[in-house]
């Protein structure tokens, strides 16, 4: 592929790959963070319920 505009083609594919990678990364990492946060919040709720049960 000895096209004189090869640089433009490569740049377009690199930008698209990076943007798609960023979109995938954003969704996946956000999901992992939220799952960890939900687990932490659930433990806090269970703790509060358990403390209430002990008090009663």
């Amino acid at each position, binding site marked *: 592929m000895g096209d*004189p505009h090869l640089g433009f*083609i490569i740049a377009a594919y690199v*930008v698209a790959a990076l943007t798609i990678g960023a979109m995938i990364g954003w969704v996946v990492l956000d999901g992992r963070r*939220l799952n960890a946060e939900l687990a932490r*919040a659930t433990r806090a709720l269970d703790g509060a319920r358990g403390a209430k049960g002990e008090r009663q």
Partner: protein
Amino acid sequence: MVNLANPTTFVELTRRVLPWLAAATAALFVVGLWLSFAAPPDYQQGETVKIMYLHVPAAWMATFVYAVMAAAALGTLVWRHPLADAAQKAAAPLGAGFTFICLVTGSLWGKPMWGTYWVWDARLTSVLVLFILYLGLIALWRAIDDPGRAARAAAILTLVGAVDLPIIKFSVDWWNTLHQPASVFRLDGPMIAPELLMPLIVMSLAFTGLFLTLHVMAIRNEILRRRIARVTMLAAVKGDRLAPGLAAGGA
């Protein structure tokens, strides 16, 4: 359909569908990229036509995602459905991503073909307006703390901004622009040679699959976010009941 709109059902159903959707998208990208690089060069543009396999699907997705958001905005305003709010919010960053790819690849295609990276013609400007709309919607969601109010405000802005979609579509017909007119979706059939059209179709399906996969995942994230808020609030209420003195003290 009504059952699917229940957040719990949605999470359960999509948990089973997501791996298949992601696998199909990855397969479409592999085939699409292989077909794109195997396709012959254009008789006028040479190998530069390969940018089309990214630019055109990204451009279609940029407008398609906004149409999905407009439909979700109706769901928010008319039926006040929480899944419609989540669908709207989850789609905006994805739409911004596709529009960014469309603008940058278009610019990189424009320089060797038109001799310039950018011109303020109707098609390019209306797509830039779409990108700014996406950024504005993302900012609006972040600016309003109450999710219900944020959803309604974003829905109104989305529906007002939807006027940009027909402008993008028909800009090349209504005004004299540097951008070429439609060459695929035409009443008299596509103007592109079948050898170039096939990779374009497969890449468009791959981009559509990518959006569907990421959108479903992002909606699930929004549902999670709401569950976290609910559980945190419940834990705080239980904690307050346990230690009312502590709560009154503003701890």
